[in-house]
């Protein structure tokens, strides 16, 4: 029943007029599946965390996931900030399943943030924690609280306290300007990492989140660099004749898969980052590109047009034969794969429309279309695979969206830049 509803929701999603999506400021676009999302009241926290409204950041995270539906603040007839002030009947009347309250206590240059989560039906506190962090890290704390709530209620690790990378492109002709950016998962705290007059593309996170591999045309031809995010140092990794593209760190961070056409044709290779030794994975006259590692590092997924048009294939990371995985849609490229290997999302082309589509291998390779645009591309799973980032074209410019993996909630990310493209969702962050 729920599944039917979800499929319906996905269908409804396809018919949302683009004009609605283009409205400013970006609104969370929850489509159809409201009934299935869990109602939660996130009450404004007592005290102040400076510019950051912690409850607002938490609520936005939960809404964006599509798994929760937060109560508008205007509907909050009570605003408890301590457990003693919580009156369960109030929240039951408001039909809330969960209630989150909290307090911000300044402590010198630090913030002490206490929060408590209540199960309204069971009338019990299910989570309570105090976090101490530098005042400048208030948003980090808020994302961590959202992660804790998400995990407590759904039993799945939250991925709000993560970062994303993307490329902005502005200007035209000779004044074109590109920046490789890193931001929080909600688009805030955006920082430029690399700046270039030449195209930048295909950022790929190292598994520890400390490095970004990417492609730059600053040498005239494509080349692959690895940028260290903490030291600002960068290393030229590949600048062979032909294409040097599509870098992807192995799950242990010791290798980089990439596409090279130094043999005259694009093939997938794996470079050992220590020895710089290359091993060729594919060997076919078709275009083989966009390698993606399985979580255990044993398998490489990639795009190939060996069957005529681009489709997703998989091969052993040690090389050898390839197996075709995608059969729906005339075009499937730029795969992103969930950590459990069960979900594969692609930029799927059907006629003139390119949309983000997700294939669930646990459900008999069932496909769901997740995006409504005509030029949607570059899907990238959050580390918990509950959401994806992708790039869409609206009003002549590219923008980023997040969409829940069930297609229920979609939100345009509020990030600056004339054109925002090539998103890549980073790994889980390490606790400080």
């Amino acid at each position: 029943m729920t599944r039917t509803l979800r499929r319906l929701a996905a269908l409804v999603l396809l018919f949302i007029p683009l004009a609605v999506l283009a409205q400013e400021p970006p609104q969370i676009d929850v489509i159809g599946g409201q009934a299935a999302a869990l109602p939660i009241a996130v009450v404004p926290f007592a005290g102040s965390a400076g510019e950051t409204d912690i409850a607002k950041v938490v609520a936005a995270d939960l809404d964006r996931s599509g798994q929760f539906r937060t109560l508008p603040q205007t509907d909050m007839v009570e605003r408890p900030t301590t457990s003693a002030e919580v009156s369960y009947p109030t929240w039951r009347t408001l039909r809330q399943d969960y209630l989150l309250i909290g307090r911000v206590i300044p402590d010198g240059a630090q913030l002490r943030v206490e929060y408590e989560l209540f199960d309204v039906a069971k009338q019990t506190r299910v989570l309570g924690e105090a976090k101490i962090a530098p005042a400048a890290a208030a948003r980090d704390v808020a994302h961590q609280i959202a992660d804790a709530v998400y995990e407590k209620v759904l039993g799945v690790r939250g991925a709000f306290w993560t970062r994303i990378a993307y490329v902005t492109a502005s200007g035209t002709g000779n004044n074109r300007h590109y920046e490789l950016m890193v931001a929080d998962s909600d688009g805030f705290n955006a920082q430029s990492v690399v700046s270039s007059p030449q195209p930048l593309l295909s950022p790929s996170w190292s598994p520890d989140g400390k490095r970004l591999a990417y492609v730059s045309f600053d040498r005239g031809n494509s080349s692959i660099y690895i940028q260290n995010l903490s030291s600002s140092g960068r290393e030229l990794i590949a600048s062979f004749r032909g294409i040097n593209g599509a870098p992807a760190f192995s799950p242990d961070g010791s290798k980089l898969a990439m596409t090279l056409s130094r043999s005259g044709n694009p093939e997938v290779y794996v470079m050992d980052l220590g020895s710089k030794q290359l091993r060729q994975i594919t060997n076919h006259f078709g275009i083989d590109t966009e390698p993606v590692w399985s979580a255990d590092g044993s398998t490489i997924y990639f795009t190939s047009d060996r069957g005529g048009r681009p489709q997703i294939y998989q091969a052993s990371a040690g090389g050898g034969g390839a197996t075709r995985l995608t059969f729906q849609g005339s075009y499937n490229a730029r795969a992103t794969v969930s950590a459990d290997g069960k979900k594969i999302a692609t930029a799927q082309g059907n006629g003139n429309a390119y949309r983000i589509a997700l294939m669930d291998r646990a459900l008999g390779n069932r496909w769901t279309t997740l995006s409504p645009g005509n030029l949607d591309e570059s899907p990238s799973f959050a580390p918990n695979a509950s959401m994806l980032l992708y790039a869409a074209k609206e009003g002549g410019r590219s923008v980023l969206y997040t969409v829940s993996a069930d297609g229920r909630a979609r939100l345009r990310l509020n990030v600056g830049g004339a054109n925002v493209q090539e998103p890549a969702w980073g790994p889980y962050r390490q606790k400080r």
Partner: protein
Amino acid sequence: MNASATPKFAKVLLISMMVVAAAACSKKVKETPPPPAEPTTTQPVTEQPTTPGAYTPESLDTDACLRQRVVYFDFDQDALRPEFQAAMACHAKYLRDRPSARMSLEGNTDERGSREYNLGLGERRGNAVSSALQANGGSGSQITVVSYGEERPTCNDSNEDCWAKNRRVEIVYTAK
């Protein structure tokens, strides 16, 4: 440039224009499509590159055929359309006439589909032009292929007119 050189240039120019005009005429008159490569692969040209009729760097600006430096492609295709055969022939002849000349073939695609796949597609188009030039007698050592994929559009709208303009290989002489 001295005075005595000028008439020579004019002569070369005139001859090269006549060759092009003749090729163009024959194409229109004959029912069967003539192979435009033939007149440029005759022996005198290859054996005596400095004979009248050989291209000079100035030809790049004056010769109607050589001025055609963009080759367009159909959607998701890397096959050379027949209308570009004449351009392949004259640019190949230029490479033969000017062994020191070097060219970069810049492959491009429209915005549809993934950027990395489009890098591959752009390279394929560059390779298709490279092969055609070599089939017409150009030397592979004079040609470099670089793919920009969809990263360097000449037209930024999302419609077929624009896409058709962006699916192209640009012939850029890096040494004339």
